[in-house]
């Protein structure tokens, strides 16, 4: 198996840098061969740019993939949106000779060429398949005795025909990665439902988008959990910053801490909440931090 290159995307480095730090700390601690994918751009985001124009969406995605091909490394994504764009574009360009030729025509102008010899991975499916919950458990220094609401997010699982990660209705692999850290993954209604951010809806139809987030948050609140754990910084932003936006509009206060999986994993591996940037969220909850640190 090839080594990995870490694709950052936009939201992680430019809005939630704690997730970038958490990812790097965890990969190093678990001795996973992963280097930075230097010079990468926006994936580009599937909800907006794929909606606007296929050729530019494919060309930019192809360039990001090519940067990793040139290092002979598979791409590791930590965002469902980046995963959606890069995995879909990689598959399309490998299988469709016409689109591949057209895209390579654009890439030739910058002296690059898509070859189609690497894979695109998402950190959740990578950790589950290539490392496995048992091995992840072996790295734990601080077992987490907390109740977690897992939010898979849509594009990690779907389209399921392409993702090949099993049932999109009742997936389990992410829950297993939570439970191997000592935490309890709590079932709740509409667990696999969308956070409302994708498809360009959060950017252009904020009110509509927040109604979906509010529904999701109310279901989670009822489940009596300590935090939400997600696999995507865009879901993360919607469920974290969205809580404040909902409070301003409706007065409803959820006050639920939101963690990217790499931040939860980082806590279990013994890193401090500050090192993992958990305090950089919009929603800050000292009670949660205290509970984790005092266990």
């Amino acid at each position, binding site marked *: 198996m090839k080594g990995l290159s870490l694709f*950052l995307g*936009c*939201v992680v*480095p*430019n*809005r939630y*840098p*704690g997730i*970038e*730090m958490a990812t790097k700390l965890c990969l190093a601690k678990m001795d996973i061969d992963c280097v930075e994918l*230097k*010079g*990468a*751009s*926006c994936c*580009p*985001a*599937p*909800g*907006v*740019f*794929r*909606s*606007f*124009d296929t*050729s*530019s969406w494919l*060309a*930019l995605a192809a*360039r990001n993939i090519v940067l990793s091909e040139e290092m002979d490394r598979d791409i590791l994504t930590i965002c469902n949106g980046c995963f959606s764009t890069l995995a879909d574009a990689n598959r399309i360009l490998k299988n469709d000779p016409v689109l591949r030729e057209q895209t390579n025509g*654009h890439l030739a*102008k*910058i002296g*690059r060429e898509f070859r189609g010899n690497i894979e695109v991975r998402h950190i959740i499916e990578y950790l589950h398949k290539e490392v496995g919950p048992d091995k992840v458990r072996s790295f734990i220094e601080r077992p987490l005795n907390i109740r977690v609401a897992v939010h898979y997010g*849509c*594009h990690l699982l*779907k*389209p*399921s025909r392409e993702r090949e990660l099993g049932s*999109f209705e009742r997936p389990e692999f992410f829950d297993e990665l939570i439970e191997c850290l000592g935490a309890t993954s709590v079932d709740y209604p*509409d667990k696999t*439902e*969308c956070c*409302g*951010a*994708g*498809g*360009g*809806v959060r*950017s*252009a*139809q904020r009110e*509509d*988008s927040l*109604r*979906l987030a509010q*529904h999701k948050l109310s279901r989670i609140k009822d489940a009596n959990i300590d935090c939400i754990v997600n696999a995507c910084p865009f879901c993360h932003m919607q469920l974290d910053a969205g809580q404040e936006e909902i409070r301003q509009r409706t007065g409803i206060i959820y006050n639920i801490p939101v963690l990217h999986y790499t931040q939860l994993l980082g806590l279990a591996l013994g890193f401090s909440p500050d*090192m993992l*940037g958990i305090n*950089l969220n919009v929603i800050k909850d000292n009670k949660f931090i205290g509970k984790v640190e005092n266990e």
Partner: protein
Amino acid sequence: MPETSSSDPELLNRLKAACKDTLKCMQCGVCSGSCPSGRHTALNIRRLVRKAARTTDVLKDEQLWMCTTCYNCQERCPRDIDIVDVVLTLRSMAVHEGIMLAEHTKVSELLLEYGHAVPIDEERRKQRVELGLEEMPLTVHKYPDDLKEVRSLLISCGFDSLLDNKGKRNAEKETI
């Protein structure tokens, strides 16, 4: 929004060709019943699928932009219609006809300027340093030559003219 008249036969033909799969639809409503956006917004995905290959009016339908692309409808469609792919096709045709929401134009301009749809800001530069990361991420933000490549690609694909096109279409409409 600009007019895309149903009497534009060439556009209608392209629409029919791109969305011909939707003619398999039996209007069972599994898509709407599975649609999280439809629970909370005006989106009626079953209706959009019905309109898709039949009228160019669908390109002006605001509901087109309320889909979060969660894929529930596509996963559950008993006729195996790739509904989200249809939505993406319709959106792209709309954009090429000059129909783009203002916020989406802004995001596109950010991509052209910075190579990131969400560029860095002062607050996050500080946070990055405090975390022990480089102040600028090692992306196009850090490497100007890479940003140049991204811009060249976007221009090679005509992405910039899509935004100009919007300006033109809006101007046309205003003079009507």
